[in-house]
């Protein structure tokens, strides 16, 4: 399933790397529910969030600068950072 990482730039303790924001990838696996570090970092309690591993083609992140476009990066992204493509 294809997803786009939201291109949001809020302040705070964000575990979504900047270089992946706005990029499109494929869901590699769904890992389960975890505490949301954006809240726990400030002692806030909120609902747990689903954590998802997303696979990105290097070409889709770095464009023509990619070393080899078909190499991939995989990262864990919380579901509230994903939007459908």
């Amino acid at each position, binding site marked *: 399933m294809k997803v786009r990482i939201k291109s949001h730039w809020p302040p705070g303790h964000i575990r979504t790397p900047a270089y992946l924001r706005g990029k499109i990838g494929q869901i590699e696996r769904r890992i389960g529910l*975890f505490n949301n570090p954006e809240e726990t970092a400030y002692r806030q309690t909120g609902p747990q969030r689903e*954590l998802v591993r997303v696979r990105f083609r290097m070409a889709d992140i770095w464009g023509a*600068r990619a070393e080899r476009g078909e190499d991939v*990066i995989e990262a864990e992204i919380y579901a509230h950072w994903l939007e459908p493509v």
Partner: protein
Amino acid sequence: MPHDHHDHEHDHSHEGLSPSGHPYRADNDTDLSYWQAMEIALRELLIEKGHLTAAQIHAQINAMDSRSPANGARVVARAWVDPEFKAALLADAGAASRAMGFDIGPMHLIALENTKEVHNVVVCTLCSCYPRNLLGLPPDWYKSRAYRSRTVIEPRKVLSEFGLELPEQMQVRVHDSTADMRYIVLPAQPEASLGLTEEELAAWVTRDSMIGVGLPQAPQ
């Protein structure tokens, strides 16, 4: 890159250097930093209020210091000789490591299998996430800005600086350890090691091969 560091003085003055030319480590006579003072304050409060004892804190430090890549090497060697264990490791590396008797605490672990077609390498671009509860503390270069930023941009160049040249047709998978999971690479078993015992095989598994910047090799 593996040996990039800045400990050496390059001004060719030999004052203050050991006989082998290395600078002596400075005594820690300076004031505490803000965070050093905070750590001491927090630790003393936890002890004063009876939440922990100094002995418990030290026991935990000892436990962490006693973890080493040899633990991961035993896990990899077991996966090489036992297909059922390998399947369990790839399904849930944390549970499989615990089943072998390793106390890895609450760590969530994923094992990444290297094959003829795929090479995996692990990085934490945001900080220094590492499977410490199995492998112990990460090497210094793993925490460097150069490794953390370059591995997601030019992994093949970084790997070549570690002496690892990958065939063009092999896919590189870079795993950015961004959140709750930790990663261990399950390297492919070298053909030259086929037929060895599990214990012998563990000596082939290097720390770097479990991060993905190296391959298993015959013990020296």
